[in-house]
């Protein structure tokens, strides 16, 4: 298949390894990956903060960037961005009275998938060790980000893939479905409540004894990782794409030296 990668703004700027890992996984499965260069952001930041007209600009760019290229499916390593593309883009367009953009956005959205959705539903990957060569001998706990879980209905797709990674020791996270407190600009506008939610999430992660917390949304992981670091708890965060891309030949090395000591 010809797969268009939507890196997402935060991964593009802050966590390129997540997108690199996504490319590797898909190429390993024999697909061709393209990167529509016009892409930038899904626009949820503007949308969710009430900046509708500015969201319209960002949505228009996204739709145009992906229409410009020829592909079978598009994929993003982010549940919230894919939910935004699928559900919010047509809504933003309609609310701004741009019906033509609405139908174009719907068309793009219909062929856009979150990574675990694509792997499980379209590419038939159920056993990461066998089909991707995934190898990651570490203790890992998993946080299911809200939008992927509730808006995309990802269910156990992500945790199933993780459990099928060779060597991975899966630790169940207490109160896993509780929001980590990121919520985009919520984390800055209502920082104390966000911080309280973050602390609970971080302590739950700490209680599992896992070295790492993974998930499918880099923004949540940035927030959670930032909290773990500030609270000087040992665990770190890593996106599940990087775990899936880790193999015996090219293992993902977790660098513990840079970690703050307890």
């Amino acid at each position, binding site marked *: 298949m010809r797969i268009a990668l939507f890196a997402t*703004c935060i991964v*593009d*700027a*802050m*966590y*390129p*390894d997540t997108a*690199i890992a996504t490319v*590797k996984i898909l*190429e*390993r*499965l024999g697909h*061709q990956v393209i*990167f*529509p*260069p*016009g892409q*930038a*952001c899904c*626009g949820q*930041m*503007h949308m*969710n*903060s*009430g900046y509708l007209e*500015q969201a319209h*600009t960002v949505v228009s*760019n996204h739709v145009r960037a992906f229409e410009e290229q020829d592909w079978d499916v598009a994929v993003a390593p982010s549940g919230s961005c894919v939910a935004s593309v699928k559900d919010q883009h047509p809504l933003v367009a309609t609310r701004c009275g741009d019906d033509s953009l609405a139908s174009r956005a719907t068309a793009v959205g219909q062929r856009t998938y979150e990574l675990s959705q694509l792997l499980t539903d379209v590419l038939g990957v159920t056993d990461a060790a066998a089909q991707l060569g995934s190898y990651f001998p570490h203790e890992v706990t998993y946080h299911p980000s*809200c*939008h992927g879980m*509730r*808006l995309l209905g990802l269910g156990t797709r992500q945790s199933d893939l993780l459990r099928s990674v060779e060597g991975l020791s899966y630790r169940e996270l207490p109160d896993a479905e*509780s*929001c980590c*407190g*990121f*919520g985009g600009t*919520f*984390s*800055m*506008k*209502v920082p104390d*409540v*966000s911080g309280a*939610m*973050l*602390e609970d999430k971080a302590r739950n992660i700490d209680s599992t004894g896992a070295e790492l917390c993974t998930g499918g949304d880099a923004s949540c*992981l*940035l*927030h959670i990782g930032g909290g773990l670091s*500030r609270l000087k708890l040992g665990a770190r*965060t*890593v996106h599940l794409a990087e775990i899936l891309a880790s193999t015996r030949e*090219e*293992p993902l*090395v*977790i*660098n513990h030296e*840079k970690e*703050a000591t307890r």
Partner: protein
Amino acid sequence: MSTVNLGMPRVRAEGNLFEETPFADYAREELKNTQLRANLAHATHSIRDKRLRVVSELPDWEQLRDAGSAVKESVMADLPALLEEFEANFTARGGVIHWARDADEANRIVTDLIREQGADEVVKVKSMATQEIGLNEHLAEQGISAFETDLAELIVQLGHDTPSHILVPAIHKNREEIRDIFLKEMGDVDPNLDSEPAHLAEAARKHLRAKFLSAKVAISGANFGIAETGTLAVVESEGNGRMCLTLPETLITVMGIEKLLPKASDLEAFMQLLPRSSTGERMNPYTSMWTGAAHDDGPQNVHLVLLDNGRTNALADVHGRSALHCIRCSACMNVCPVYERAGGHAYGSTYPGPIGAILSPLLTGVDKAENGTLPYASSLCGACYVACPVKINIPEILVHLRGEDVEARRKRSKRPTEMDLVMKGAEWAFSKGSHLGLAEKGLPLGRVAAGRDGKIKKLPGHLLGGWTQFRDVPAPPKRSFRDWWAKEHKDSSGPGPSGPDAAGQEGGQA
């Protein structure tokens, strides 16, 4: 604009609907109250589990929700005709209907009805609507004592406090605090009263029984009004509702205009949705229904005050009107991680939690008091939408109201806020791939700022500073993804690892 142009001016909503302190500030203070947080965490987690249990035992829960949502939507679409139908049926059976445009008018109507009976005290069944209009306070000013009879409302009233939760208004009080309130404020109480919940309930029973048996006038709300028959329904647990609805001669009910259901048979769905969502029971202990005045049975002087008080404002908001579908079950606040930590008082209004964050500004307008801060009291996690028995898309309405708030602020002040500037910058960066690429050229500065331990501890400004109040920020990477793609990714149409980093890569997020 998503609001329909009204021929007549918006009604001014009044009463206890106003957040006077910006939510973030109020929440910050409430977070310091560890007793409250402990009570709330315990309470909300317990109800969550109960609700999940009784909801998952039904094979047709989602179908019930679908029906509930559609019925409520049809009510809003046909509201004028349904109200007229209800009115005709209720009055045909001896009930009297009054219409109140706002809280003031409702309070005046109720006061006059009480005075007509020559009464100076009334017993009350818990009612959100009467809390909303501030009825008790108004009656007190008029020399009429209103005795709350729900245990939690009684606790709140005796404690000179305000409710913090729709369903369990005294959830912020533990048993010792309640015992202390009773000892201090209940005239006839046993001085050796302990804090056993059963004994506290017994004390309340004794205290209230005499009132019930002698009351001449009762005031209630209503959970549902059935248009087809003119029937009102009150759903309760303690029996104080039955006492108030059955024993006095005069019954005055206050109900929002949106609380109708079209047909008697609609109760078959709603009386499954409501109890399971609110108290997490298959059915609540007592439900009473009455249609006007029943011959030789119960109150003969039966009144209903239909209340607008901003509901028509909400109705006019095309993208917000589904908030009026709410059946006041409180499932949303029981699953809300923000409500769990901030508590109900932080929302400032009779309606707290997720539903309050949308309903209060819809009733009053986002530009009144600090109601414009309420739509931001959410991380948009969506748990409320999953729990809502009538499928109100609360996150979508929150985002819609944020848009209304941004627009209202823009109209009020030409000076951009910090958020406006951040958004403008981001819009530029995200409007083109090349712009984002350009913005990313600034990343190396972040690496410098992060220093040797690779962490940024403090960001400038009020907003970004809020981020680093609780979190470290990792050092930005050496190059962005699009840089890597352009320079290092070897375009291949086949499998296999690519590039010089085939030997292994450093990972994990610092």
